[in-house]
């Protein structure tokens, strides 16, 4: 099946979340802020879309979650990259770079 637009978006979202968490554990809202900062467009569908993604990544064992105290003094779920997640991030990043370079070359040739 050809990937639909949501699929592609989802793939990017997963990569971006992994990248965001590479900087250290953070909770959902913070991840959303971080992505917002990096790119306004990613979360145009809604900040909420990171939650299914977080659950999915957790299921794949790429991230783990534990409860901690947020800056608001409330209990929050902090997500942290696992070693498997770090490897996945590297893989994804390498793939992405390859693709980007390829596109770049095509654009320069044109």
């Amino acid at each position, binding site marked *: 099946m050809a990937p639909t637009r949501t699929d592609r978006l989802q793939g990017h979202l997963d990569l971006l979340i992994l990248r965001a968490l590479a900087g250290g554990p953070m909770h*959902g*809202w913070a991840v959303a802020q971080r992505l917002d900062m990096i790119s306004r467009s990613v979360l145009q569908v809604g*900040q*909420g879309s990171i*939650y299914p993604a977080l659950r999915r990544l*957790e*299921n794949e064992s790429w991230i783990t979650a534990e409860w901690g105290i*947020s800056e608001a003094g409330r209990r929050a*779920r902090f997500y942290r990259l696992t070693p498997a997640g770090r490897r996945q991030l590297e893989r994804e990043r390498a793939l992405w770079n390859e693709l980007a370079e390829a596109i770049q070359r095509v654009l320069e040739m044109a």
Partner: protein
Amino acid sequence: MSAALKLFRRLRAMVRRPRLDRELDEELQLHIELESRKLAGQGVAPSEARRRALVAFGGLERYREAARDASGVRPLEDFVRDLRLGLRALRKRPGYTSIVLSILGVGIGGSAALFGAVHGILLRPMPYPDAHRIMTVWQQDRKTGEQQEFAPANFLDLRERSASFERLTAIEPFGLDWESPEGPVYLPTWLVYEGFFELFGTQPLLGRAFRPDEHAPGRGQVVVLGFRVWKTRFAGSEDVVGRMLKLDGKPYVVAGVMPEGFAMPGDDAVWAPKVQEGWESRSRTSRFYSVFGRLRPGAGIDEARAELGSIGARLLREHPLSNADLGMTLVPLPEHVVGGLRRALLMLLGAVGFLLAVVTANLASMQLARAAGRRREFAVRAALGAGAGRLARQLLTESLLLAAGGAVLGFALAGASLHGARLWAPAHLPRVAELRADGVVLAFAAGLSLLAMLSTGVLPALVANRAHLQGILALGGRGATGGRRIAGMQSALVVVQLGLSLVLLIGAGLLVRSFVLVLGEQRGFLTDGVVSVTVQTWGYYTKGPDRVRFVREVIERLSRQPGIQSAGMASSVPLMETIGAERAPLTIEGAPPADSPPMVQFTVATPGLFGALGIPLRRGRLLDDRDGADSPSVVLVNEAFARHHFPGEEVLGKRLVLGGSLESRLQEPASREIVGVVGDVRRHGLHEAARPGVYLPHAQSPTGANAFIVRGSLDPGHLLRRIKQVIWGIHPAIPIHRETTMADLVGVSVRERRFLLALLSGFAAAALGLAAAGLFGLMSYVTGERTREFGIRMTLGAPPRQVSSLVLKRAIGLAAAGIGLGLAGAAGLTRILAGFLYGVTSMDPATFAAGAATLLAVTVLATWWPARRAARIDLVETLRQE
């Protein structure tokens, strides 16, 4: 991540569902709050800030659901929900459910039972350590390939010269008469050479096996009991070991009891040590040793066979007269034990496979019809948001439930069948006592049931998947295109069912014809009112004249009784296993000497035998009382003998010698004159033409193997009692070896034929019934689909007959396709049956035609009702309903 870990996580997630839900809610609330706070910090009013936070989040409910799904709980939850839905759906349609379950149960049960038999009898190793190294060894006729028992001297030479076998042993059929507290009892016995039990590696259940010194002359008075003898004759009592039994008038000690399942060659016998007599170690022509050997570890079967070949060749050089045309060969024990049953079992397994295929096709078409009926339901559910995969999965879940039910029913049925086989199967069938519906059979039933239901569940799932919503909803569930596709698949399924049924039908037909032909053969003897009682008098009358006097006395007393027409004695009974020696080397005087004398069957008889069995005299005279011990030796021959040895010549007055120069267990050889020719008797089976045979007068060959054969107008039970009374009136200690009616012997001789026939006919009938039901269902469905069309046709003036013939034509078209398929299949497959047939070829045109005609008749019968309904359609009524 490993599948197991994923599953574990899912299970854990499911258990912790409520807590996870709470945590997710908490997390999302925190997000909204933090976002609102951030916006408020940027100067947005508090209420507005919360609204904007929610907008930025983008649908709280939606993402909550999505997050829940993503946490991996969904599939399991769905599965449980599917199961519940499926159970409810099945319970709502008890008729459908029970029909599917019973069809499936029968199909699975039959297959699993046969698989159990194949597994238990053919596949499972025999219950002996390294059973694959145990061989049966045979002498073999080089010309005919016929396997024969070993002559003692040849066995002794084999044992001395063979290097491939680490152990060789022989057994000899024997019998011991036991003076039991309840009267004389005959115990079938095997005399066994040293090392017999050790060769099989089976330890006795109680006591011990034989010691080497017990095979020495004068020491062999010990027995080991077979499990069944121990159970039936000694009530399974443990203190039987060491007990003294009076056998053949001598004291024997019970040394041990063998465990259940040790059946070499049966478990309803006793074993006694073989003590070799002097003459035996020199005998190369009397062949009565069954030989077993255990290959050395590492010795191959081919290697052993080659060695046997060279030993055989050497014996032939050393003893050219007695070993002429004889070689040696071996058969692995399991192959020997299972014998001809293997072919029958595999044939039946194939046949039940066909039945299962019909069952599967039938279920598939039922499922299709049901799916068609539910298209509307599915269309509605799809419109309400159920995913296509989800709907298909629900159908598969229902199939799964039915499969589980079918497996349970099938396993129960298989268990009952195997239990029945254990109880009722003829005792001589090998390994039947070991049959159990075990885990392997259960796994087979479950796997098969699952396979059947999944394969049949896939079709309707596909249909449901392709349901065009609007079309179906608009047309009130009778979508023209979908309907046609379903009808097309249904037709194909019906054709397959009809074709497969026809194959079974033709197979069963061939067996039926063979059976009828076998029973219709000229047997050459009467069965009505004829009974026989067998005794062995060797131990009670050691001298020939005493045996003759005993037999004459019994027959005279019997002949005097009212209600008895004819009484005689014979040393062998047609269709009964051997009771005494019955083959001897034959020399015809005046004929050129043969390099090896042919073996001929002989029966020792009294004059009354021919009257009792109704064997007709063709030429010359019968035996009579003049043929005494001191009169000239005479012999009768049968027609086959006359044809074979004296084609176109006068037989009467010719002379022959039985036994000749070679030793045998007969009296000293004498030249005998042929004084009469009598009719042929099918001695070895109704399907086997009579071989050349001769009859000797008892007075001149006083054997102790006596079967009294009596014909009378009394009922058989009464007749048998009379005979026993007479025998015991003369000698009260003589045990009866066997009592039976000739009708029973005939029944037993065709028992396996009848059993195969019954099973195959049962499969064929079941398949045909299913196919007919499938056809009926399809034609009813088609008629229903075309109600409107038929109504219009009739309104426009088509006579009802024409409408019903439309339906009938379609059915006959399907039947024709099925017949084509079935005939082609049968033509390719009935060859397998060739070995089970008698008097017909496997391509018998009459049977093929009859099968096709039956199928056609069933087609018309199954279509009759739908066709009639089509002819009675009332258009106005039809249109109103729509």
